[in-house]
C-alpha cells in the first residue's frame, strides 16, 4: 500500500467516526436530515466541528463497564448493610423524593432527546457525541432507580416517581422544562440542555444533591455522583463546543442563540428554585447556602464564561441581575410554599430547627430575620396550637415555568412580581418579566401548557375533591407520603431505628 503521513490522534478519531459518513446521492440530503433548517440556524461547514471528546466504542464499553462494576458493588453493600440507617436524619430522604420525582425522569427524557439529535445532525462528529450522551443519560436514569431502590423500601414517597412526574402539580415544573426543550428543534435542544443546563447550571443542580448526599451519610447517592462525574465532564465539553460552533458558523446565528440563552437561563433558574429550597432546608447537614452556591457557580463562573463569549457578540443572559438579587429570597419563598401545600406533595415539610434558623440568619443577613424568620415563628405558634397551617386554595401558576406565582419584585420583596397579558382574547399570568418575555416570543407554544391546577379545575385529574386527586390521580398515599414530617410514619420509623441501637446482640453471641 502507498504510505503517506501517519494520522495524529485527532485525524484518526475522525477517520473512526466522521469518515463512516458519506454524501448521499440516492436520497436528498434534506430528506435524510429534515430538521436542520427550520430554526433559522445556518451551518456552513460541519467539518469545523471540534470533537468535544474522543472515545471510540471499545474504550467507551471498557471504561463504563469498570465504573458500573464498582458502582453496583457499592449499591449491593449499601443494601446488605442497611446503609439507609447511617444517614444524618430521615428528613434528608425528602431531598431524594424530590430528586427521584423531579430529576431522574429528566435523565430518561434526555436519553430520548439526545437519541433524536444524535440521528438528526448531518455532522457525523456531532451525532456520535450526542449518541454517547444519550446512552450516558440512560445510564443515569437507570442507576438512579437502582441507587434509590433501597430507600424506597424503607421510606415513603419514593414509590411511584415516573407516574407522579407526569401528573403531580409541582412536578410539571421539571416536566414542562424538558418537554419545552424536546419539542424545540435540534439546535435549540442542544443550546438549552447541553449548554445552558449541562454546562452553565449543572453545578447548581447536580452538585447540591450529590454533595448533600456526601454531607448527610448517604453512600448510595454520593457513589452514583462520583461515578457520573466523568460522564458529566464529557457532557459539559459538548455544551461548550455546540455554542462556539453555532456562533462561529454564521453571524446570523448570534441573535438566535442569544435569545435561546436568555430563555434557557431563565427557565433553568426557575427550575433551580426547587434545588435552592432543597439545599437550604432539606439537608440536615448543610453543604453551603443557596446564595453562596449561586455566587460561586453562577456569578463567578458564569460571569467568566459570558465574558469569554463576548467576542462572539454574546452578552450575559437577560434578567441576570434579577436572578442574582433573588438568591437571598427564593429558597425561603419556595419552602413556605411547599410547607402550606404539604398535603399535596409526595414529600414532607417542617419548620426548621432553631439552629438551622440561626444558620440562615448568618447566611442571609439582609433578608432572613426581616422577612422569613417571622413566618416560621408564626407557623410554629399555629402548629403548637394544633392548627398546623395548610392552604386549601390552589395557587395561581405561571404560564411558562409553572411554579406558583410566588416570586417578588427585585426592589420590593413584599410585592409579588405578577405579570399578565392578553393573547387572542385569553388572559395569561406570569411569575416574572423573564417568563412573560418567553411567552411573548412563542405564545403558540405556551398556550398549550398542561397546567396542573387548571386541569384539576377542569376535572381532568380524577375528581372534584383534592383528596381524590391526591390518592387516585397522583398515587400519593395520604397520611404516609404527604403532610408534616413531625408525626409522619417516616419519622416514627426513624425513631425506632435509632431507638433499637445498639443492635440486638443475641445472634452475634
Amino acid at each position: 500500500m502507498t504510505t503517506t503521513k501517519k494520522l495524529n490522534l485527532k485525524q484518526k478519531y475522525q477517520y473512526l467516526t466522521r469518515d463512516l459518513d458519506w454524501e448521499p446521492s440516492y436520497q436528498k440530503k434534506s430528506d435524510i436530515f429534515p430538521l436542520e433548517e427550520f430554526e433559522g440556524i445556518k451551518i456552513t461547514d460541519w467539518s469545523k466541528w471540534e470533537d468535544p471528546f474522543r472515545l471510540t466504542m471499545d474504550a467507551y464499553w471498557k471504561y463504563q463497564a469498570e465504573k458500573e462494576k464498582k458502582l453496583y458493588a457499592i449499591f449491593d453493600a449499601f443494601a446488605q448493610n442497611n446503609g439507609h440507617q447511617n444517614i444524618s436524619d430521615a428528613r434528608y430522604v425528602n431531598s431524594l423524593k424530590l430528586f427521584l420525582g423531579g430529576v431522574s425522569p429528566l435523565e430518561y427524557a434526555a436519553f430520548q432527546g439526545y437519541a433524536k439529535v444524535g440521528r438528526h445532525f448531518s455532522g457525523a462528529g456531532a451525532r456520535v457525541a450526542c449518541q454517547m450522551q444519550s446512552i450516558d443519560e440512560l445510564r443515569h436514569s437507570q442507576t438512579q432507580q437502582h441507587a434509590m431502590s433501597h430507600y424506597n423500601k424503607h421510606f415513603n414517597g419514593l414509590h411511584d416517581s415516573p407516574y407522579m412526574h407526569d401528573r403531580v402539580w409541582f412536578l410539571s415544573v421539571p416536566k414542562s422544562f424538558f418537554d419545552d426543550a424536546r419539542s424545540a428543534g435540534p439546535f435549540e435542544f442542544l443550546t438549552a440542555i447541553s449548554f445552558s443546563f449541562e454546562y452553565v447550571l449543572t453545578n447548581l443542580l447536580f452538585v447540591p444533591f450529590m454533595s448533600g448526599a456526601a454531607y448527610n451519610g448517604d453512600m448510595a447517592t454520593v457513589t452514583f455522583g462520583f461515578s457520573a462525574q466523568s460522564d458529566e465532564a464529557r457532557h459539559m465539553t459538548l455544551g461548550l463546543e455546540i455554542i462556539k460552533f453555532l456562533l462561529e458558523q454564521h453571524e446570523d446565528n448570534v441573535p438566535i442563540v442569544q435569545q435561546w440563552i436568555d430563555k434557557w437561563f431563565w427557565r433553568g433558574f426557575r427550575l433551580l428554585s426547587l434545588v435552592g429550597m432543597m439545599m437550604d432546608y432539606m439537608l440536615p447537614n448543610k453543604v453551603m447556602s443557596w446564595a453562596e452556591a449561586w455566587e460561586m457557580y453562577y456569578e463567578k463562573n458564569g460571569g467568566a464564561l459570558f465574558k469569554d463569549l463576548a467576542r462572539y457578540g454574546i452578552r450575559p443572559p437577560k434578567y441576570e441581575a434579577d436572578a442574582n438579587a433573588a438568591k437571598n429570597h427564593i429558597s425561603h419563598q419556595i419552602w413556605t410554599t411547599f410547607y402550606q401545600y404539604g398535603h399535596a406533595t409526595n414529600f414532607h415539610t417542617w419548620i426548621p430547627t432553631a439552629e438551622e434558623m440561626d444558620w440562615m440568619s448568618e447566611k442571609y443577613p439582609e433578608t432572613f430575620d426581616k422577612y422569613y424568620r417571622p413566618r416560621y415563628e408564626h407557623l410554629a405558634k399555629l402548629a403548637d396550637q394544633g392548627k398546623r397551617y395548610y392552604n386549601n386554595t390552589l395557587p395561581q401558576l405561571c404560564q411558562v415555568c409553572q411554579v406558583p406565582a410566588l416570586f417578588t419584585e427585585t426592589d420590593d420583596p413584599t410585592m409579588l412580581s405578577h405579570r399578565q397579558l392578553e393573547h387572542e382574547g385569553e388572559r395569561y399570568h406570569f411569575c416574572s418579566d423573564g417568563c412573560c418575555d418567553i411567552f411573548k416570543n412563542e405564545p403558540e407554544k405556551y398556550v398549550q401548557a398542561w397546567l396542573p391546577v387548571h386541569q384539576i379545575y377542569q376535572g381532568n385529574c380524577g375528581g372534584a375533591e383534592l383528596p381524590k386527586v391526591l390518592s387516585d390521580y397522583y398515587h400519593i398515599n395520604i397520611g404516609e407520603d404527604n403532610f408534616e414530617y413531625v408525626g409522619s410514619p417516616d419519622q416514627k420509623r426513624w425513631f425506632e431505628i435509632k431507638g433499637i441501637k445498639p443492635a440486638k446482640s443475641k445472634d452475634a453471641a
Partner: protein
Amino acid sequence: MTIEIKTDSVQPIRHTYSHIARRFGDKPATRYQEASFDIAATTNFHYRPLWDAEHELNDVNLSAVKMKDWYEITDPRQFYYGAYVGNRAKMQEGAETSYGFCEKRGLLKRLDERVQTSILKYLVPFRHMNQAANMNNSSIASEAVGATAAQPHIFQAMDHLGMGQYLSRIALMIDGNTGSALDISKNYWMNDPIWQPLRKLAEDSMVVRDWFELTVLQNLLIDKAIFAFAYEALDDWFAQQGAEDISMLTEFMRDWNKDPLRWVTAVVKTAAAESDSNREAIQSWVDKWEPEIFAALKPLAMQTTGIEALENVHAQLAKTLQKAGLQTKGFPA
C-alpha cells in the same frame, strides 16, 4: 461445612416501586425490571413538537404497529445499561487481543496486495452500512414508546458504531495508520457499481418514517442478511484467497450477531402476535424489503462468493422470519 455470617435484617415497608409492583407484584424485583419498566413519560405532554405538528412527544401513533401495552415487548437478554456495557466490555477485550496480535505479527501487512485490495473492496465498505444502522437505531431509540423497546435500540446503535470502527481499523492496519486504505475503500463504496444497490438501500432506509418498519428493515432483514453474508460466506471466501487471518478480526461481529437475534426476534414476534393488523403491517414490510436486500447483495456475491452463497443466507433469514411468525417471499431468482 458452610459458614454463615449473621446479618441484621430490617423489615421493609415495600419491596419495590409501585409501578413495578403493579406489574410483577410486591416482591423484590430484578435490576432489569426496576431500570426498564414504566420509567418513560406517557401522558400530559405540555407542547407539541415544532418539528412534527401531527404528533405529541412519546406518541404511540408514530408507528402503524399498535400495542395495548408496549412493555409487553421485552429484551430476553435483560440488558439494562450496566449489564450491556459489562457484556460488551468482555467482547471488546477479546477483539483487542486479536487486533493486537495481528498488528504485532503484521498479519495483514504481509498479505499480497491483491488480497489487501479485496479486503478494502469487499469487506471494509460494510462499515458504511454500520453507519446507516447506527443512525437508524438512534432514531428508533428516540421514538419507540416504552423503555424496554427503546433501550435495545440505542445499544444496537452504539454496537454498530463500534463494529464500523473495527472494520475501519482493519484498513488502518493495512495502510499503517495513514488513512489511505480507508480512502480507497470509501471510493469503492461511493463509486464502484457493486456497492451502489447497497448504498441506495442504506440511504432509502434513512428516510423510512415508521420506526417499527425501520427496525424490521434494519435489525431483522438487513442485519440478518448482511451478517450472514459478510461474516460467514465472505469469510469462507477470504480464507480461500489466503486471507484466513481476517477471520480473527471479525470474530466480534459473529459473536455479536447471535445476540440481537434473540431480542429482535422477540420484538417482532411479540408485536406480530398482538393483532392481525400488526402481523399484516409487519409482513407487508418484509414483502417490500426482502427482495431488495437480496438484489442489493447480488453484485457483491457475484464477484466473490458466488450467487449460491446467498441462498444459504436466505435460508437463515427464512428461519428467523419463521421464528417471528412471518413468511418469506422466497429467494429471488
